[in-house]
């Protein structure tokens, strides 16, 4: 059983006199067999957090437990972990067999045991017949497999993977992603995986831990993070392309933004009061062309906009809409109040610079407190249908 727990883990660096807090009071409880992804932009502390679990960095404060043991001050070799590195980190002066067996040889395993384990690991990652090659003779994908085999021969309690696919090309990345999922199913071991690629995190993990500025923003299953982000940061980070954000103010019966208003009954929702400054979050797929209004369960009023740029992706088209007078800048900032990104059907005959009307699905919009960034609610129920109100506010773990 290898449950991994972090309690109040903090890591501060002294960078030429300035104290930099890389990890700030991190609390995590990871179950045995779970596949957890740490995601966040670069510099968010995800790699440092992983290094503290690995023992490559000793935290300034807090404790780390693996299984039943406190490992905070143990060196990496005594923690029962194995790690796959971003730059793959195969020892270039050793062949594949020596690389895979490195850890076992250090621990004086008997030769037949080493052979048996190396063979099995090579089998799992499909490296049979390549044991005598040198790393420089292998392709990127093969090296990655060697690195994974080197981790699995040790039969560790916990796998740590630090952006293991970051240096692979796009096609290989997708392929290795499925292999990692298969591996996880086969090994039934806890995997902690660091990535800056939220798509990787979405597809691989049981739960995603979103980090920013050294702090844990949210840890939840991928779809929960997507559908019910705890704050503006998670909302903006998870999902590609990003959620649209529009700033507005709550009035008696609507949310007023500079370019449109969204009717709802503020009194039916906890935490919202008239006069509050809020940020509205709308995912691109929750904006519909006006002619589909009848198919949207709880459509907003018609919003007029001008199409700016169209990006056909094949299975959908991303349309950048300019709100208001259409004279705004080209800025791509998330919170520009005058711009919306919507996803439309690829068969649409929409063209650039068309004037169109769009509606928003009010069941799938998010309100955030503009001051704190905290999520307030994840749908705006129209006042006619109060009965179905509160379900969205209940945090569901399953």
């Amino acid at each position, binding site marked *: 059983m*290898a449950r991994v727990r972090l309690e109040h883990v903090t890591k501060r660096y002294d960078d030429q006199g300035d104290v930099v807090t890389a990890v700030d009071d991190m609390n995590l409880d990871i179950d045995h067999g779970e596949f957890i992804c740490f995601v966040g932009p670069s510099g968010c502390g995800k790699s440092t957090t992983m290094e503290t679990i690995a023992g490559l960095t*000793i935290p300034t404060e807090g404790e780390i437990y693996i*299984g039943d043991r406190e490992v905070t*001050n*143990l*060196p990496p070799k*005594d923690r*029962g972990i194995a790690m796959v590195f971003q730059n793959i980190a195969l020892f270039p002066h050793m062949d594949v067999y020596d690389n895979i067996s490195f850890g076992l040889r250090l*621990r*004086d*395993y008997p030769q037949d045991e080493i052979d048996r384990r190396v063979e099995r690991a090579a089998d799992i990652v499909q490296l049979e017949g390549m044991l005598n090659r040198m790393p420089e003779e292998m392709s990127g994908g093969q090296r990655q497999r060697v690195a994974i085999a080197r981790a699995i021969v*040790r039969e*560790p*309690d916990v796998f740590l993977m630090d952006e293991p696919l970051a240096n692979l090309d796009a096609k290989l990345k997708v392929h290795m992603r499925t292999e990692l999922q298969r591996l996880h199913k086969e090994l039934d071991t806890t995997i902690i995986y660091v990535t800056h690629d939220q798509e990787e995190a979405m597809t691989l993990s049981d739960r995603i831990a979103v980090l920013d500025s050294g702090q844990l923003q949210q840890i939840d299953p991928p779809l929960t993070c997507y559908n019910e982000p705890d704050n503006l940061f998670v909302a903006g980070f998870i999902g590609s392309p990003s959620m649209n954000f529009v700033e507005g103010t709550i009035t008696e019966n609507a949310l007023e933004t500079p370019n449109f208003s969204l009717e709802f009954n503020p009194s039916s929702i906890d935490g919202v009061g008239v006069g509050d400054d809020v940020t509205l979050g709308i995912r691109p797929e929750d904006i519909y062309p006006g002619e589909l209004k009848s198919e949207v369960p709880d459509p907003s009023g018609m919003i007029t906009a001008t199409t700016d740029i169209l990006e056909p992706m094949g299975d959908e088209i991303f349309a950048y809409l300019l709100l208001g007078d259409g004279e705004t800048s080209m800025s791509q900032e998330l919170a520009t109040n005058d711009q919306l990104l919507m996803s439309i059907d690829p068969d649409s005959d929409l063209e650039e610079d068309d004037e169109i009307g769009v509606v928003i699905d009010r069941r799938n919009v998010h309100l955030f407190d503009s001051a704190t960034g905290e999520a307030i609610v994840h749908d705006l129920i129209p006042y006619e249908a109060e009965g179905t109100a509160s379900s969205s506010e209940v945090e569901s773990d399953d």
Partner: protein
Amino acid sequence: MSTETGRESRRSGALVSVMRWMENLSDTQYAYLLLVPVFVLLGVVALYPLLRTFELSLFALSADFSSTTFVGAGNYVELFTGGKNRYLPGGTTFLPEGFGLGALLNSALVVTIIFAVTSVLFETLIGLGQALILDQDFYGRRWIRAAIIIPWAVPVVIQGIIFFLMFNSNVGFLTPPLADLGLLAPTNTLNDTASATFIIIVADIWKTSAFMALLILAGLQSIDRGLYDVAKVAGATKWQQFKLITFPLILPTIGVAVLFRSVQAMRVYGIIDTVSSCTVVPSLSCMVVATFTTREGTSAAIAFVTAAIIGIVVMGLIVWQGEDAI
């Protein structure tokens, strides 16, 4: 996991706990721990002797040779006023006692400086020439390069013997032709101060130009070859290419090399001891060695002055070269 810990415990408990203690040190603590051997070695063999030398230089031997007394800067004062010259071997002096060539070459300080300046100057010029040749691509470059490096690797004592044998009054075939040119004394050449100084400088240039060449070659090879294409397109001649591209770009390298070599040249001893003798060609290190068993205060003062002069040379060159020198 259980198997791994099981194996771990087979090792002795004390070793494991020491290892664990070391692993948990912060980077700073670990860095200083690993530097302990360096500190100990340099402390014992360099720092302690240096302080001790300074201490010794403040004491003088009493008249009856039985004890030493504290004289403060007395040894240094005597050194610079000529009072110590009577302890120096063979009538040599520390500072020159006049401005004739004979008086100048009888002074350890002047000889050391003449040796350092002349040999480093010629080594730089010849080294630059050698480096420019080694920088070209030609068939057999490897062998030419080895041939040019070899003198640098020759032990000082053998370098000395070679030049001793070339100018020795019995077999030295080079003395008569050079004496005809007026460069050397025709007889007893190696006991003639001017001739021996000249020969020692030549010997040093022979051995150490290659070292200069290697340092300058490194600078040459780091020059972007594309710059020469640009110059060629612009119509620059080879000489202009050298003057406008090569030379300015390797100047910092030459600066570092000159610094390095000057410091080494100021220490000259072995070649003098082998080719001639310290009484004929006095250098500062020579004076230290000649007096340290009998007059340790004097010897220590000379040693410390040598160190100080080298310090001044280093500072001077660093100021001249700026930060590049380090």
